[in-house]
């Protein structure tokens, strides 16, 4: 158990090291794919930290991500603050928002939580647009920095590495164990003495923090930001698909899902731009009916079968 955990960490470190060289190896189109993939790796790994053990499907990623991106835009454009200051404020706001949502919904059954997060990005977008139109005047925000794709890529890589490391520690900590028990049977969890609401809120807050941070880091990539663009409900669904496609049972599961899916998604977006929603739907059905434990689950199943056969 312990040595396996260490070797996992060593593997992760090697991967991060190798990944850091990508901007010197490719550029242009493939580097931009790399940035997108790294963004999804960070987002879906932090999604798995909470939703993996608890089986609570969070669709709030897009909302926190949007809050992060929007805050950077508003801070830099309307209040002349530096990118760095806004990149510190954004995740804190994201975390506070997540904590509030957690307190309201996570004391209740999982269905309420899913429903609540389902429309969250859309609702915040409506409110932000309304506030902007009525009180702030301007419609779009400019995010002008010297960052190029490789800088954003490295920042996202750093975030992904931190998320992974944190997830690794959490999965070996008391709270990580508590979440697995909650995912197994919440009644039992309460009766062995776990404060289930608090454990869930803490982890959900963490995912809100990182989603907003990723949104903040990505903001310079767009230069020009408007609410319709950063609050994308689709992003939440993409994160869920990638995480589940890889396998939510392991912290490194999303990694297995993100890379092929990002490439496939880009291809679909170019070849069949009108069918992308349909494709998303088919992916959901594929996961539910063919890969309920993700690709990682499939691989482990095959390995177990081979071992039994040998």
């Amino acid at each position, binding site marked *: 158990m312990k040595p396996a955990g260490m070797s996992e960490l060593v593997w992760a470190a090697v991967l991060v090291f190798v990944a850091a060289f990508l901007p010197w190896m490719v550029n242009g189109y493939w580097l931009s794919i790399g940035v997108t993939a790294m963004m999804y790796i960070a987002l879906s790994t932090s999604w798995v930290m909470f939703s993996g053990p608890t*089986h609570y*499907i969070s669709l709030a990623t897009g909302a926190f991500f949007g809050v992060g991106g929007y805050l950077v835009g508003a801070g830099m454009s309307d209040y002349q603050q530096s990118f760095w200051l806004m990149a510190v404020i954004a995740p804190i706001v994201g975390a506070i928002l997540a904590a509030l949502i957690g307190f309201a919904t996570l004391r209740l059954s999982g269905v309420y939580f899913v429903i609540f997060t389902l*429309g969250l990005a859309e609702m915040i977008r409506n409110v932000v647009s309304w506030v902007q139109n*009525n009180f702030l005047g301007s419609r779009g925000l400019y995010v002008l920095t010297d960052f190029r794709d490789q800088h954003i890529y490295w920042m996202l890589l750093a975030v992904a590495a931190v998320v992974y490391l944190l997830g690794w520690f959490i999965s070996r900590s008391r709270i990580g164990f508590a979440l697995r028990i909650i995912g197994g049977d919440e009644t039992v969890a309460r009766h062995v003495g776990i404060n289930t609401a608090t454990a869930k809120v803490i982890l959900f807050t963490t995912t809100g923090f990182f989603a907003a941070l990723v949104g903040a880091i990505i903001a310079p990539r767009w230069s020009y930001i408007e609410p319709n663009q950063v609050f994308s409900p689709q992003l939440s669904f993409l994160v869920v698909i990638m995480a589940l496609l890889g396998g939510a049972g392991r912290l490194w599961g999303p990694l297995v899902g993100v890379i092929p899916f990002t490439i496939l998604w880009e291809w679909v977006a170019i070849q069949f731009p009108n*069918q992308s929603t349909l494709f*998303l*739907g*088919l992916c959901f*059905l594929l996961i539910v009916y063919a890969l309920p434990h993700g690709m990682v689950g499939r691989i482990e199943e095959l390995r177990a079968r081979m071992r039994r056969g040998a």
Partner: protein
Amino acid sequence: MLDIVVSGLLLSGTYALVAMGLNLQYGVARIMNLANGEILILGALASFWFYTTSQVSPLLTLVFITPASFVVNWLIYRFLLTPLVRRAKTQGALEVDSILATFGMSFIIIGIVVSIEGGFFAYNFLLDPISIIGSTTSLNRLVAFVIACAIGLALYLWLNLSRSGVAVRAVSVSTEAAGLVGINVPRVSAFAFALGGAITAAGGVLISTFITLDGSIGVVFTLKALIIVIMGGVGDVRGAIVAALILGLVETAVATLIDPGLTLAAAYLMFILVLLFRPEGLFGRRAT
């Protein structure tokens, strides 16, 4: 002020109907159907399409789209959801699976609808102005309201008075106990799911007569129906009607007094209030 009350009231009739459909699917068949709004959009699209291409009255569309939706939803339950019900070890596992599967279905339907009709769809049906207790509204809203009430009432009477209605209610109380007294639970569940889908599609036809829709707006209706169901209490018809009334009024008030873009935010505000103060529903009983 009076305008708000009248149009809010008229809107709530259709909302209550759609929420009843969802209530049957979640309360009886135990499927959290997040593709509910897309079924509504399919009904609306059919109505739009028949009206604009062949001048078929939405009222006629209603008569054949409702049974058609019943069949489609029955097939969905039978072939896509039954395997999930069978493999689920716990209610929680079924919830997760059905949420993901119905997400998939909703995206597939959106994809299909958008490829048929990419833009907004709206048509002019019974636009004659009509005056109700001093407030002027259009006839189509009133007609939609009356039909929604009629369907809702028929459903209510059927559930409470007929033998098969009692079986449906028994399954909603406890699948195990219903099974023990000889009710064919899988069949009743499939029936309830299909009936819920049929009612939702009927709601879609009605809504399309007075609201402009587009292919991707279904999720908003799913959310509103869910909020009504939670606010009213799962399985509680009376609660759903009151909740729909409140939502219809609040939404109309926010849209007229503040900004039409904030109706979803208003629905969310009510959702939060319910979650914080009455998570068991307006008339729900505490303790489960």
